[in-house]
């Protein structure tokens, strides 16, 4: 069953009086329970696309359908995990996890129970009463994931959530995220510029073309889980994506030297 559908999404930005086309007709179908990774060179518009799906940015044309219904505003059915976590420094860890539940008007008892369950899942129970600055970057991202899962969204959106982590922490979270996905059966759209990350996580990988962004190709990765970073058998998928991206990275690199 199709969970989320992006139809011909176009997005322009005005940059110093010039119009930059960030998204040039994106079409994407996400099935229920999909773990779809969007990979592409930096600046290709993949984060913009995720913001459009989240409803944080309005597309110039095109539409997003969730369960067949048109959506145009942000909503707790599509929860985003941001690159920098975007946790609230004035709240304790547990209150951060409960934030969305509080906004939704869920009673305190129930909120506590839910937040403890997800803090437990992310192995953060000990830090429930800490403030955000007391956590490491990896712990912050765990809190952000716990906060997102507590909302029980229809679709989980992840915008390069592991980009700022050291490689050990990232490898650990890559495995944990797969386990969580298998356990919760969540539909996940995961944006990354890291090809091996996309190969490890996705059951589908959508490759974004460079500016203006279009989806160049979608590949299916049907391979057992949990997949580990060092698994040799993932290499062929990795190289397949590298080949697709090669022609994209080159003109982009030239662009940057101007």
């Amino acid at each position: 069953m199709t969970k989320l559908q992006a139809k011909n999404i176009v997005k322009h930005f005005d940059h110093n009086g010039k119009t930059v086309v960030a998204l040039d007709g994106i079409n994407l179908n996400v099935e229920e329970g999909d773990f779809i990774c969007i990979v592409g060179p930096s600046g290709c518009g993949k984060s913009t696309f995720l913001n459009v799906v989240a409803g944080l940015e309005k597309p110039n044309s095109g539409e997003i359908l969730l369960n067949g219904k048109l959506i145009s505003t942000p909503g707790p059915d599509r929860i985003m995990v941001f690159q920098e976590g975007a946790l609230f420094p004035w709240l304790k860890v547990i209150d951060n996890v409960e934030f969305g539940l509080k906004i939704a008007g869920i009673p305190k008892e129930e909120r506590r129970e839910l937040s403890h369950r997800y803090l437990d899942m992310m192995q953060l129970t000990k830090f429930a009463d800490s403030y955000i600055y007391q956590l490491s970057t990896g712990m912050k991202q765990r809190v952000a994931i716990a906060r997102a899962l507590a909302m029980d969204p229809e679709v989980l959106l992840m915008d390069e959530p592991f980009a700022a982590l050291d490689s050990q922490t990232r490898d650990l979270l890559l495995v944990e995220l797969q386990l969580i996905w298998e356990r919760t059966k969540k539909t996940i759209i995961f944006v990354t510029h890291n090809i091996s990350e996309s190969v490890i996580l996705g059951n589908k990988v959508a490759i974004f073309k460079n500016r203006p962004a279009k989806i160049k190709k979608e590949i299916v990765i049907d391979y057992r889980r949990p997949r580990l970073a060092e698994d040799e058998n993932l290499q062929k998928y990795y190289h397949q994506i590298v080949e697709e991206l090669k022609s994209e990275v080159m003109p982009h690199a030239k662009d940057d030297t101007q």
Partner: protein
Amino acid sequence: MNENTQFKGSHNLHDAANAALFVAAFLGMWQIIFMLGIWPKISLPSPILVAENFAKIIWNGSLPQSIGITLARLIGAFTISATLGILIGFTMIKFKGFGKTLNSFSAGLLSFPSIAWVPFSILLIGFNEFGIMFVVIMSSIFSIMISTYSSIRNIPPIYLDAARNMGARGFLLFRYVTIPAATPSLIIGLRQAWSFAWHAIIGAEILMSIVGLGHILSVGREFLDMSQVIASMITIFAIGLLVDRLLLYKLEDKVRRKWGLDLHR
């Protein structure tokens, strides 16, 4: 944790010792200059003469009374100023064009000397409590408006995005994200506005009042009583320092700690 408090304790002791040393050095210099006899005793009394005057004005009740009146006026005026200033600041956020215009307008009034409001206030309201409070309000409200406005505008957009993403809108977004996110910088603004208000009240009392700290300062001048002038000045200094350190700075420090903003080494 324990180590931390211990460290803090010895830190405070160290600060107190430094402060005491500084005060002692200051009094010593003052005494030496007094003994050199450059100025007549009436123009520059010794620290002991000032201390005697202090004892006198405390004993006859004029100093405690003046402090009480001045602080009551100040707190009343500042409460009005803060409430109105913050509300106007919110309105400036809500209506963008209005906010932009009022922001540049207020920036001009921010550097407007508080004393320059006095003649206007005397003619408009008169030599009374409200006239004095008017001067204090006008001297601090623009700073509060501007700092409310800019504190909210400087909130990192990612907090608002994250909150909207989780379904927060309208009042809930304002109450649970905008206000707490703006608080650290809002407190700094209030601290600054408090010092503007403090400048203003002493000035206004010197020119417009028959009671209060500013008044006993000007009485000292009229009776050529330098020791009373200095005693009043020390009182004004001490109150300003105490309020800032014990109240406003503490508040700011508490928020900064919670946010982890004080981890600079």
